[in-house]
């Protein structure tokens, strides 16, 4: 892993024992200060509603899928289904349990997603690779069917669409774009931190072991089946919470159709383009997936808007997006994270070539 390699190189440099830790932590600290302390005050509603909120929700989903696909090596095409479970379960817990704090409802939504993820992870005990990937589609279609079929899940709303409850956390209500952004940011920060702890723990190590060599893992006594199922459950938990964010903080409404196969692919894209087995990668990938089409469409309509109608422009964008994905896979298969690390090393005059 390029990530590990570069960080190792850095730590091998002769330096005072304290310095590397500080240098490593500084960008993250800076990022958090900006995210919490600056952006909420200077951002406009477009930045929150159209960019940062979808970015945060998708990043979190990417973090979740990365646990499963990047770390534990199990490909899933059903992520959107777990988002849907998370969103609808959180909605129902909040609706039906009097006085349940929203945070707990969202947590329970995640737990429900984990339970469903566990069930649909069972085929992983017998199937591999594309067989497993395709079998996760069962989750995708089944969950969508259940949620549309039984109106109970959408509180008998004739239209099947549910409205988000107000966002509250520890008695505080988060309103408006900036408020919902902060709410999502808190959730994403906490879960990402926990995910980071997880991948550094023995369990995280077992994930990678199962991914890299299942037979060897089994023989040295790693509980392979339990590890795989745990990966499915934990990944679905995080994706479920991401679904709740998507519904409650971003769109403020949710319908099962919003969690379709395209969304699942989108999350897979995020993980692969960002960089497998890298939590940072999920954020890079989500940023690209959210921002890039916007920039493309802006540039397109700016440069060619007078010549073509919006349909032609959008089809061109579709083609460009597809081409970029392929180019990316060819030129930087390790994802944006690898690109970023390379760039950073080049920008650091002090560091030696790796």
């Amino acid at each position: 892993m390029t990530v590990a390699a570069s960080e190792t190189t850095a730590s091998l440099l002769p330096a005072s024992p304290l310095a590397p830790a500080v240098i490593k932590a500084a960008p993250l600290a800076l990022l958090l200060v900006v995210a919490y302390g600056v952006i909420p005050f200077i951002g406009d509603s477009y930045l929150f509603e159209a960019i940062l909120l979808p970015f945060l929700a998708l990043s979190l989903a990417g973090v979740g899928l990365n646990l499963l696909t990047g770390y534990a090596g199990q490909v899933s095409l059903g992520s959107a289904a777990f988002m849907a479970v998370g969103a609808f379960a959180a909605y129902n817990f909040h609706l039906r349990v009097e006085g349940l704090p929203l945070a707990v409802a969202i947590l329970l939504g995640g737990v429900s997603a984990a339970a469903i993820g566990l069930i649909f992870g069972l085929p992983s005990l017998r199937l591999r690779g594309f067989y497993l990937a395709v079998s996760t589609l069962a989750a995708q279609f089944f969950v969508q069917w259940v949620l549309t079929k039984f109106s109970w899940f959408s509180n008998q709303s004739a239209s099947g669409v549910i409205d988000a409850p107000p966002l509250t956390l520890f008695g505080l209500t988060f309103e408006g774009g900036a408020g919902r952004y902060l709410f999502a940011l808190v959730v994403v920060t906490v879960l990402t931190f926990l995910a980071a702890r997880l991948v550094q723990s023995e369990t995280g190590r077992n994930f990678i072991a199962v991914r890299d060599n299942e037979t060897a893992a089994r023989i040295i006594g790693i509980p392979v089946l339990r590890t795989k199922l745990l990966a499915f459950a934990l990944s679905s938990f995080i994706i479920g919470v991401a679904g709740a964010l998507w519904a409650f903080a971003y769109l403020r409404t949710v319908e099962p159709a919003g969690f379709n196969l395209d969304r699942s692919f989108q999350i897979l894209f995020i993980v692969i383009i960002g960089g497998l087995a890298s939590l940072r990668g999920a954020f890079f990938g989500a940023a690209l997936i959210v921002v890039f089409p916007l920039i493309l469409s802006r540039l397109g309509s700016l440069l060619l808007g007078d010549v073509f109608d919006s349909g032609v422009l959008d089809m061109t964008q579709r083609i460009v997006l597809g081409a970029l994905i392929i180019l990316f896979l060819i030129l930087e298969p390790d994802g944006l994270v690898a690109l970023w690390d390379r760039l950073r090393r080049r920008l650091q005059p002090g560091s030696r070539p790796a």
Partner: protein
Amino acid sequence: MADFDWSFFTEVLVGGLLSGVMYSLVAIGFVLIYKTSGVLNFAQGALLLFAALTFVSLVERGLPFALAFLVTFAAMVLIGVAIERTVLRPLTNKPPITLFMATLGLSYIIEGAAQLLWGTQVHGLDLGIEDLPFDVAGVFVSQFDLFAAATAALMVALLSAFFRYSRIGLGFRAVADDPFAALAIGLRLPFIWASVWAAAGLVALVAGLLWGARLGVQFSLSLVVLKALPVLVLGGFDSILGAIVGGLLIGASEKLAEVYLGDLVGGGIEGWFAYVVALAFLLIRPAGLFGQKLVERV
């Protein structure tokens, strides 16, 4: 079960089997690519759309049927070769998931290009086969479905003959067995890959026309791949026979389930039922329909 309506059952069963043939048609395109390059080619649906759209647009512009078919086929071959050159070759030796993602990107490009080229309008496609039912001993059978089944059979026969008796076919089988060995004995892998993509293009064209005649030629055509995927899980990604038998099994069981079980849960279960059938089958018989190699070596 005294008053069980057997003729109705037969009708559902026959209808299901014939629908299954349509699924197999799409699945075969996947198998061809998977066998030689180990890629689950998600762009197969987009290819299907592209082929049907090109064909129907040419016919609407006044080209005779046969000529339009040939021109479209030529276009599909070109696309196949181009994909091999620009996408697959640079990605040789990359993990399969990367290749899979690349085919997703590819489907964006092909869908975009198809609509850019021919517009987003919905077209009707008339292959000149009347689709009125005819009555076989009280059971209605669709002419069109029979025609589709016959076409599928013909295509499979042609493909098998081609792969059995031609040089490319020999190479194809060698590559499918062992790409490294094939490389070692001097087969030109890129040429074979390109041929296979061309063959997949042909399959996409035939499937596109038959499905297009059913659904109309429109964007949703690319969604028929979702019907083919459970067939692949059941029959195996690398077996044409598996794709055919799997298609029949899935087609028949999902129709019977929708009619006889659908009522119990409220209907509309076809979307996921096929996947559950495929999974349940694999749990009982992990080797799949046509059990391939079982032993994993350590």
